[in-house]
């Protein structure tokens, strides 16, 4: 090996672990595609060879780019995310293509083609961010700017938001439309990482007695926490988006715990949210209806409870091993049993076709992504960086958990996406950005110079 890299260019670093994991992912996805093709045509053929090749090519390209760039970043994140994205792509190929149709130039693209485009773009973003971002100064120094930007986005959605599935999630600005809450989650993590790191001593140790042994941080420093609570509840009411509210709030509480280590504060925070939510449920009919549908979807099996019930049936039909890709989701009069399966219920579809085994595998993949992110956080000595990494990893993990729990009727259904699997451009691009940031911050710095090979000497040295 030679250390004589060209001046100004990094020395390539082989990523053997990533490569072998990517090979396993490729094998899995090829098997999945064969299984789907077999169900479709009855003969052994890939379901959509071009799409699969393009996607696997994109994964390999990310790998090669990271190798060439020579950054020593995490080697598990890309394969884990690649597997999730690939499963999402298989699902998109398997569903009716007319679920989403967009005219791009002269071409009419269906669900799978669009999902592939967004996935590849997300991978590009992840790679570019992983390779180019070397410092987090631009994130931490302008935290109030970021916060203002986030609030602005949110207000815009409050005012101009278009309705999707009864929630005001989509922002249409002429040719560009998207779901700002997806970007907002990153901005909030950046702001809170910077804010909490700066104030953690005050929040944790300058406590004010409230009652008995209960102490709280001094009032001025609690303000952001209170704002966060209000923001979360406001999103529930105005945006009708319980999922985003839960996500923001849970991630905030997690970061608060990391910064202060105070379990009491967290318990208090959870309690306040629950109480606030109950009050909202009493006051606002749409919140109440959501809760009622969750508690007993069978009360209105053909109306409000329809999707929930159909999703549970899908899980049940899947059983342990599933029906196989393409063999589930029976069509009734040409319609899918779950209309919003590609955005809100991908886990139910996977539960039917891949069975409980598939659900466990997918959930396990998310745990791997979170674990890698938390590893980066734990290994960082710098508070802002640690909170930032933990927050970004948690955003993915908590979001996956919330929508999975909604699919499984453990909590009311929410309209957020299953990261990397649900259809949705904003979601995929932002999650790509998160992966890119996690990769960039996992950089262990330049490799130590290779020591010249010497003859092994005795213990006491020469």
């Amino acid at each position: 090996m030679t250390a004589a890299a060209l001046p100004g260019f990094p020395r390539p670093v082989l990523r053997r672990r990533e490569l072998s994991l990517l090979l396993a992912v490729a094998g899995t996805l090829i098997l999945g595609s064969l299984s789907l093709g077999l169900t479709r045509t009855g003969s052994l053929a890939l379901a959509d060879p071009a799409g699969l090749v393009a996607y696997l090519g994109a994964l390999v390209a990310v790998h090669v780019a990271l190798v060439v760039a020579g950054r020593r970043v995490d080697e598990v994140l890309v394969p884990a995310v690649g597997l999730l994205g690939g499963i999402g792509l298989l699902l998109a190929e398997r569903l009716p293509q007319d679920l989403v149709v967009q005219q791009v130039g002269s071409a009419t693209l269906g669900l799978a083609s669009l999902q592939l485009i967004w996935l590849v773009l997300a991978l590009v973003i992840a790679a570019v961010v992983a390779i180019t971002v070397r410092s987090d100064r631009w994130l931490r120094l302008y935290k109030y700017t970021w916060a203002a930007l986030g609030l602005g986005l949110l207000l815009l959605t409050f005012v101009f938001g278009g309705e999707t599935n009864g929630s005001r999630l989509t922002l249409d600005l002429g040719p560009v439309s998207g779901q700002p809450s997806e970007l907002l989650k990153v901005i909030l993590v950046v702001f809170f990482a910077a804010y909490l790191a700066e104030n953690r001593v005050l929040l944790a140790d300058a406590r004010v007695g409230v009652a008995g042994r209960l102490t709280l941080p001094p009032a001025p420093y609690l303000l952001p926490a209170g704002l966060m609570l209000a923001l979360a509840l406001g999103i529930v009411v105005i945006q009708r988006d319980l999922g985003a509210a839960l996500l923001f709030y849970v991630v905030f509480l997690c970061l608060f715990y990391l910064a202060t280590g105070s379990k009491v504060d967290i318990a208090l925070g959870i309690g306040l949210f629950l109480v606030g939510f109950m009050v909202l449920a009493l006051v606002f009919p749409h919140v109440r209806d959501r809760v009622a549908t969750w508690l007993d979807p069978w009360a209105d099996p053909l109306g409000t409870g329809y999707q929930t019930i159909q999703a549970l049936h899908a899980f049940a039909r899947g059983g342990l091993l599933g029906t196989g890709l393409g063999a589930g989701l029976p069509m009734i009069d040409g319609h899918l049993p779950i209309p919003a399966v590609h955005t809100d219920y991908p886990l139910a579809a996977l539960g039917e076709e891949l069975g409980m085994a598939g659900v466990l595998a997918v959930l396990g993949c998310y745990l791997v992504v979170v674990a890698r992110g938390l590893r980066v956080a734990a290994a960082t000595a710098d508070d802002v960086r640690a909170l930032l990494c933990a927050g970004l990893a948690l955003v993915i993990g908590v979001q996956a958990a919330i929508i999975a729990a909604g699919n499984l009727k453990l909590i009311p259904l929410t309209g957020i996406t299953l990261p990397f699997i649900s259809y949705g451009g904003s979601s995929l691009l932002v999650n790509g950005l998160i992966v890119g940031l996690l990769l960039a911050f996992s950089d262990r710095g330049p490799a130590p110079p290779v020591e010249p090979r010497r003859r092994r000497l005795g213990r006491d040295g020469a």
Partner: protein
Amino acid sequence: MTPPGTGVGLRGGRGERPLGGRVVRLGLVLALAFGGLMLGAGYWQVLRADDLARDPNDAAVIAAAASAVRGRILDRDGRVLATNRRDAGGELYRVYADASLSAPLGYASRLYGSAGLEAAYASELLGVGGDDPVSRALAKFRPPAQRGDDLRTSLSLTLQRLAVRLLGADRGAVVALDPRTGEVLAMASTPTFDASGIANPATSRPAFAAARDDPGQPLLNRAIQGRYVPGSVFKIVTAIAGLSSGAITAATAFPQQPAAESTGLLVSGFRIRDGHHPFTGSEVLDFPRATEVSCNIWYALAGLRTGGAGMDEAARRLGFGEPIPFDLSTATSQLTNGRGPLPGGFMDDVELASAAFGQGEVLVTPLQMALVAATVANGGEEPRPRLVTAFVSPSGAVRDVPEGMLGRVLSTADAATIAAAMTRAVEGVDGQRFTSGAQVAGVTVAGKTGTAQLGGTGEPHSWFIGFAPAQAPTIALAVIVEQGGRGGERAAPLAGDMLRAYFAAQP
């Protein structure tokens, strides 16, 4: 900016400790949450998988209904009760042997879904879903079934038709079953509805509208969904409670009873009146005699002696208080409305005394009362009622549905005591005054009539429960004719006709 994480040991405040430990703890919490999600997946995909995937409203079952050939439904002798025909467009639709089967079989319609056995066994009839994970996994490699299983039922088409014909224009229900096995021989509910009409795409809409809008509510299966005041047939439940709790014996007699026949029995300031058996005069009745003449005063006193708790316990053993496990969903029979402060939910002793002879707040389903008769007939052990006895696959493989018992309700000796009293109620000199209609030449019948007073001026419901032959019963039944008058006038003769037809067909 100095990294504060390195400032360990300066003051040791929580705000200055490094984050690593907390990150690990947080990761563990999140892992636990994911563990919860996995348990949730296990709940729906393993524990609840079967009942959801077999539900008639399951998308796969509905999808199969459009393509697969529904299995037939057969009676106990192999006669076809339900089969398929093709409409002009070549699509299949259901045809039923006749309208008398509408209550147990229900219907299967493209437009209106399904009901009755057609709904309860939709997945088997359509061949959807295997019975265990292994065969379900193997099923992935086989082409989907073109045809579902046939259902073999315990129904006798002959008895079913007869029951509906005997109920005639009246509203009512008949449940006949084999007390040894719980096999339901007939389950009639009138008025019936035109199930074939609902199933036929050409007549679906008008036929369903007619059934839905009929004031007689034919879509209600009265045999299992109707809840009626039982009147004196409930005295058998009181007898079961009294004897099994030891509160009464066959010899139990109440000295105050003869006088109370004329003056009424004073309970908590309220007079319970009787008076329909003046011929017993000053005779102090024991249990068999009181049952033979259906003495309300004796049973009120027996109920008071047994107490609310004893009555409640026996009723629960019989299946009151929750739906009876059955092929079709049943309404819940009740001893009281549960709102009273006394044991068993009685408001006061007046309600308890009235309940003892089947008034008060007692409400029963005909199936529940048929099971009461069957329990006595079967020596005190209550059979689990069932309609479907086997599934027959298109290849001819037979999968039997195991029979079972609901449990022992009372001892064999106590059951024999009640059976003897019920025999006197039909065959005894005084019993014949009420119940002669239930007699069958050459067969000893045991039974009890009931005349359920509804308040107001309307005719009472006419009830009969019983079994035969009394020595070794092979059939038990419950008959109710809504506003059919006294039990002996309408229900008992109807039961007699059913029993005659049943025994005439026996070899």
